[in-house]
Structures are given as C-alpha cells and as structure tokens.
C-alpha cells in the first residue's frame, strides 16, 4: 500500500464531509419541492376561489350561471354518503381487526385474509367503482343511489380501518387481557370491556383518516353513475309522521363535492373555474379539519394512556 500522507487523509475526510453537506442541501431542496407545490396549490385555489366563497355558495344549487351556482346538493350528498360509509365500514373493519388480532389461529386461512387486506389497499380506486357498478347498481339493484356510493366508499376504506384498528388493538398490553381472564371474563367480555375501550383512540384516528380519503374520492363515484348536475335534495331523513325517521334518501340520486368540482373544472367558460376553485378550497378545508382531528385524537390518547 502506498504511503498516504496525513494531508491526503485530511483532504479525503474534507471531501467526504463536503458530500455530506451537499446531500443535506439536496435533501432540503427536495422537501422544498413538495412543500412549495402544496403552498402554490393553496394560494392558487384561495386566490381563484375567493370571489365565490360565501354563504350563497353553500345555499345554492348548481346553475348555468356561474355567479349563482352553488354546492348545496354536493355537500348534502357528501354528508349523507359519509354517514353510510362510516356506518358500514367501521363495524365491519373493527370486527375484522378484532377477529384477526384476538381470535384468529395461525393457519393458512388467516394468512390469506392478511395478505388479502394488504393487496386490497393497493387496488386502484376506480376498480372499486367498477365493482360497485356491476354488483351494487345492477346485480343487487340498489341503483345509482346514495346507498351504492356509500357502500362503495366503505369497501374502499375498509383496508385503512382494518389496518389501523389492528395496530391499536395490538398496542394494548397482554397483561390487561390476562387480568380480565383471571377474574373469569370470557374472551368477548375481555375484548368488549377492556381491549376495545383502550384501542378506541387508534380506531377513531384510522376511521377519520379513512373517511377523509373517502371524501375526496371522485373516480369510483363517477363510475357508479353520480349525476353531475343535480338541482334537488334527497328526501329528508326526518318526517312528520311516525316513525319520524325515513330511510328513503338512501335510494335517491346524488352528487358529491369532488364531482361538482370536476364538473366545473371541465367547463370551457373561465368563470366556472372560480367555482371549481371555491369548491376545491372547501374540499381541502374539510380534508384538513378531518386530518387535524385525527392527529389530535392520536395525540390525546397517547398522552392519556400510560401502561
């Protein structure tokens, strides 16, 4: 080996250190690309949408005149569909997670279910739309209704709910379960009275994250045949006569926020772009609020529970 002078070694170290610094700068720049895009997106939407955002936007139906067009049918549709989605995805997802974590024996069937949940998370969302079109709309004859859309989005977010609920359940220490068994509780009593209450935070976080994904989903809802122009509301869930609650709205046609925005974006008239931007701002704010709540709940539950 040729002799290296101390200066050579120093120079080599300096060179490598320089590379370290250069990479740190490249890293920050890469992060900046993402953050700046996000900022540009927010500013663009806010500037373009500002003239339309106001009470009138929420209280008006879509219209051919951009100044009068609003998102009333869209936000009502989105809210009702989210109700259906939450009501079906949460019980199904939590039950699956409880089974996989607490009951499942280690066998090939469990392995298949686990691999399957992972794979479902990677299925393109539009394929769920096709599934719903073939299954819910035609085979089960639910039609192009709020029910079909809600169930579609429920299937779409099911993997998210299952995975987060499993993580939350796994985080409950075994000693809690053993204490319950020692007092003679059955498996279900242990799960219901101890495991589920402790994992509630994680389950809520995952559910809200899933719903915030569902709120922005456009493609599957278009595929099942949401209307882009809808100037009436679904039937009211509350009625004057007994039993005061009606579920006929489940079968009504609908539109949702992202479809309304898509519709305005694809209009040739420039004035509608302002409406699209305004709808985008509201959609983004909804997503933001939901994510914010999810992060807050995660934080609160982490802080409160100390094993």
């Amino acid at each position, binding site marked *: 080996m040729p002799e290296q002078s101390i200066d050579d070694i120093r120079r080599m170290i300096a060179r*490598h*250190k320089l*590379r*370290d610094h250069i*990479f*740190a700068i490249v*890293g*920050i720049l*890469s*992060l900046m*690309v*993402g*953050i700046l895009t*996000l900022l*540009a*997106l927010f500013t*663009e939407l806010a500037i373009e949408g500002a003239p339309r955002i106001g009470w009138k936007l929420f209280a008006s139906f879509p219209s051919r005149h951009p100044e009068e067009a609003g998102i009333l049918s869209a936000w009502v549709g989105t809210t009702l569909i989210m109700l259906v989605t939450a009501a079906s995805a949460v019980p*199904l997802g939590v*039950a*699956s997670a*409880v*089974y*996989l974590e607490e*009951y499942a024996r280690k066998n090939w069937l469990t392995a*298949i*279910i686990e691999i399957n949940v992972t794979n479902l998370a*990677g*299925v*393109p*969302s*539009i*394929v769920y*739309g*096709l599934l719903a079109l*073939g299954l819910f709309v035609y085979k089960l004859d639910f039609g192009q209704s709020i029910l079909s859309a809600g169930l579609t989005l429920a*299937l779409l977010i099911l*993997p998210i709910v*299952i995975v987060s609920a499993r993580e939350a359940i796994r985080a409950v220490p075994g000693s809690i379960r053993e204490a319950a068994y020692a007092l003679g509780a*059955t*498996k*279900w009593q242990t799960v219901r009275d101890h495991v589920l209450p402790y994992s509630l935070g994680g389950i809520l976080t995952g559910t809200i994250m899933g719903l915030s*994904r569902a*709120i*922005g989903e*456009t*493609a599957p809802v*278009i*595929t099942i*045949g949401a209307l*882009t122009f809808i100037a009436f509301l679904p039937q009211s869930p509350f009625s004057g006569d007994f039993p005061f609650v009606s579920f006929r709205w489940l079968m009504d046609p609908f539109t949702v926020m992202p479809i309304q*925005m*898509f519709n305005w*974006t*694809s209009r040739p008239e420039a004035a509608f*772009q302002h409406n699209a931007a305004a709808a*985008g701002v509201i*959609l983004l704010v909804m*997503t933001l609020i939901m*994510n914010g709540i999810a*992060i807050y709940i995660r934080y609160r539950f982490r802080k409160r529970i100390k094993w």
Partner: protein
Amino acid sequence: MPSNKANNKYSGRSRLRRVREFIIESVLFLAALSSVATTFAIVSILVIESIPFFRHVPLLDFLTDAQWTPLFDDAHYGIMPLMAGTLVTTAVALLVAIPLGTIIAIYLCEFAPHRVREIIKPFLELLGAVPTVVFGYFALIFVTPVLQKLIPALPGFNMLSAGLVMGIMIVPYIASVSEDAMHAVPKHILEGSYAMGATRFQTAVRVIIPSAFSGIAAAYILGISRAVGETMIVAIAAGQQPNLTLNPMEPAATISAYIVQVSLGDLPHGSIGYQTIFVAGLSLMLITLIFNIVGYFLAKRFREVY
C-alpha cells in the same frame, strides 16, 4: 341438595356463555372474511362483464389494433393507445417521485434534526391527503400554463403536466414507506458503519439502502400502483383522446381516464360501451398485478436477513 342445584344453575349459565361466545366468534370471522369476499367479487365482476366483449372482439385485435374507438361507428378495440397513455403518465410521475421520495426518505432518516422531522412530516402527510380532483385542477390551471411559458408548443391538455403533478402526489407515499424501511435497519449495523469512519452519506448509500432494499422496492411498487390507477388528474389535465404515442408533450387518455369519460355519459347496461369499461378495468388490474408480482420477487431476491 342445594349445592347440586347451584351447580346446575352455573353449568346452564356457562353453556349459555359458550354458545354466545361461539356466535360472536363466528360473526367476527364472517366480518374478517368480507375482505376476501371483496377481492373475489372484484375479480369475478371484472371477468364476467368482460367475457361478452371478448366474444365480440378477438383477443389478438384487442392487443394489436392501434386504435381505440369503441363508441364510434367505425369501432376499433385496440388497448394499445390507452396502455401507452397509462405508461407515459406513470413514467413521468415516477421520474419525479422516485428520486424525490428516496432523497427525502434518506434525508429524514439520517440527516434531518429531530425538530425538523416533527415539523415536516405532517406537511408531507397533508400533501398525500389532498383530493386528486384538486390536484387535477392544479395541473390544468396552474402547472400547464407555467410549462407553456417554458415550452411554447405545449398543448393545453398534455401528459407532461398530469404526470408531474401525479409524481408530486406520490412523493409522500414513497418517502414514508421507504423511511419506515430505513428505520427498521438494526442500529448496530449503522453504528458499525460509523465506527469505521464512514460519513452519513456513505452509510446511507452503502449500508442503509442495500439493507432496506426490499422495503424500498415495496415503496416503489406502491408508487407505481398509485400512478397506474390514478384517474382524476389524468382525466382533467391530460385530455381524453386515446392517442398512441410515447411523447409526454401530447394529449392522451389513460385506461382509468377512459373509464371515467365513458361513465360520465349515459351507459345502457350490457351495451358494448358498458363492457369496454370492465375490460379496461381488468387490464388495469392485470398491470397492477404484474408490478406487484415483480416487486414481490425483487423484494424476496434482495431481502437481507439479520
């Protein structure tokens, strides 16, 4: 005998309890099976609805015809134009997302101070949570005009701007999954590297990336699946004309954009147009599946066992 009676009472109750436990376990099991049923339903619906199409159109025509015009009088059913659109937008997106995502993952894992990480990560999560229709609007209204200043000949609808925005959308997924994989590399391996006098950059490139390769590959595959299946950005910003080209400056439709375009119109159940969207969906699933299998074997081939 009183004690016997009490025993009977308890055994009756315990039988009831056992029955109830069994019922509950069965219900939970059925719920867990629902995800398998979903997969099964997806595959069977796509196949069942595609079969009539392939009775009408020979598979060879489907794979080799250079035109896709199923709703015209002169109908052609070649998947190649839609496939080309999907591959070009995916390639553009990955050219953005893979370098950026990997660099961000390395930076967050090895370089960034703790404070910076805690501040930056929620922003990245937020970038991943933006609805795709909003990204589509952004690509059409903001990114395309900016690109047109650089490339004056660029048409209003083009795959370049859709692909670029899609790439930015995928960055958070790739960054966070690769970062998790990098964090899972055992600390003693890193410490060994540092003890030998390696810099952080050397450790990242020669130790962390090879050790975490299977996880990083999984992140890339996830990114590819996202890009292939992404719909709204391309439907809004790339135009909806099937166009057999590999030039990202041109407008073109992707498989998913075609499905959306046809769904927006009135589509009678059982018509050839109705069948084509299921065929398109089946093709989309097959592409995703191929990438997933490739990724699985890549990950297996390079998996490091500690």
